[in-house]
């Protein structure tokens, strides 16, 4: 596959992580996240170990830190919420740098921030090492309900088409002297959104016709069955197993 022809979350490569079958990676990610979420929030050292594990995976996958950092912006809304918690939560107060903060809020904020960040980074690593098609095949392989897989598949396929359509509508608006920004113009933007919805809806109908015309009978055919060797499962399991052990130790030593 030529460079520049893939989704921007994906980073082309040939590392052992890239080569792992996608469904193995999805299961690994899920198990890892569960282990992280199950860890008591007071066990600060455990989260350090988790972070180190992810850094190791990133290193093996040859995904640079800047690549991950730039994609972590999706987390910002949660970060804002987590930062607010120490100020608004009740309970015992502690003084930090002259600010009176809620101890409970600090812990809750930390809990959200640490677990959320680990989950986001792990997901970024999955997306960076697995292209969209492989992910869809993985969902199919893991017996996610076909309707959900189809919806996801169409989203992947048509996100660019619809973004393009939106961009053309914007250019057409502006070519006729429209300047966005003020509140009065919101009506125009809303009308465009409505038009875009109708267009997408109608496209959906046309796509359905085209699918029926090629013999679609309610289910996407399984085009490729992914298989994983025991070695691959074992290799991938190292991550969630280590995390599980850390989580258990954290509970015991609490």
């Amino acid at each position, binding site marked *: *596959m*030529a460079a520049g*022809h*893939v989704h921007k979350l994906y980073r082309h490569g040939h590392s052992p992580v890239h080569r792992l079958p996608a469904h193995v990676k999805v299961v690994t990610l899920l198990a890892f996240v569960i282990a992280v979420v199950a860890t008591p929030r007071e066990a600060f050292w455990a989260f350090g170990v988790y972070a180190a594990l992810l850094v190791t995976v990133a290193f093996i996958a040859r995904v640079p830190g800047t690549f991950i950092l730039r994609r972590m912006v999706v987390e910002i809304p949660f970060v804002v919420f987590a930062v607010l918690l120490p100020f608004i939560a009740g309970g015992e107060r502690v003084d930090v740098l002259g600010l009176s903060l809620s101890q409970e809020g600090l812990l809750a904020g930390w809990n959200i921030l640490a677990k959320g960040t680990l989950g986001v980074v792990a997901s970024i690593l999955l997306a960076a090492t697995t292209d*969209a*098609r492989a992910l*869809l095949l993985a969902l199919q392989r893991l017996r996610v309900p076909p309707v959900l897989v189809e919806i996801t*598949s*169409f989203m*992947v*396929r*048509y996100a*660019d*088409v619809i973004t393009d359509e939106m961009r053309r509508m914007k250019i057409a608006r502006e070519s006729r002297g429209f300047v966005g920004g003020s509140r009065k113009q919101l009506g125009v933007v809303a009308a465009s959104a409505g038009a875009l919805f109708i267009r997408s809806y109608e*496209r959906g109908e*046309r*796509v359905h*016709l*085209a*699918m*029926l*015309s*090629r*013999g*679609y*009978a309610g289910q*996407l*055919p*399984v*085009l490729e069955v992914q298989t994983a060797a025991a070695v691959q499962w074992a290799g991938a399991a190292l991550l969630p197993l280590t995390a599980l052990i850390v989580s258990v130790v954290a509970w015991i030593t609490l």
Partner: protein
Amino acid sequence: MTVPSLEVRGLAFAYPDGHQALFGVDMTIARGERVALLGPNGAGKTTLVLHLNGILTAGAGEVMVAGLPVAKENLQEIRRRVGIVFQDPDDQLFMPTVRDDVAFGPANLGISGSELDDRVHDALDKVGMAEFADRPPHHLSFGQRRRVAVATVLAMGPEILVLDEPSSNLDPASRRELADVVRALDVTVFMVTHDLPYALELCPRSMVLSGGVIAVDAPTRDLLTDDTLLAEHRLELPFGFDPRSAPTVPA
């Protein structure tokens, strides 16, 4: 005489809102023929096309594809036999990669494994797109996407290839490339268009759908040189195009 690829008798259709689009269409297309269906916008060309593979069900009359009537119990086989290439390739190509999209039709027919791979490769090869198999459709040019759309139905081994406005939005080079592809195919072609020079280039025979019936059925060159006839059905040649002096393209 062999069974014709397509036979339509007395086909009439009204939309649920009462608007009647077809008033008794009759036509026969022999195996291996390339026929153009001409008509202005809104003449009911697309409505007719959707009857050919049973997406729309006739109010009256019947459609037979290579002798098999279009009816509920035959739908799967009918949709294998009738390969429709829709106007907007983005509607037709909905899978993440070109390869998966071309495989979609044959896989629905229950083909798998190496036979499926062969079908996909052959179909892409016929339209000159084999090297693009792993690309997502969105990253192809419009002309390339249209050729892939042709491949998606060729992979089903159709009896008749139905092209809905095949030349729309194509630049002249893509237009010629598509014409070369179509001419090289060993399949019956039914081409719906209002691009009259393209009809002349590809189809020795043309029909005009007008007023919900086939109003004219004649050799394309004769039809295009009859000015009164063209005007009667709201058909117009592009400026400066003279079908009398247009070269004959070898079949």
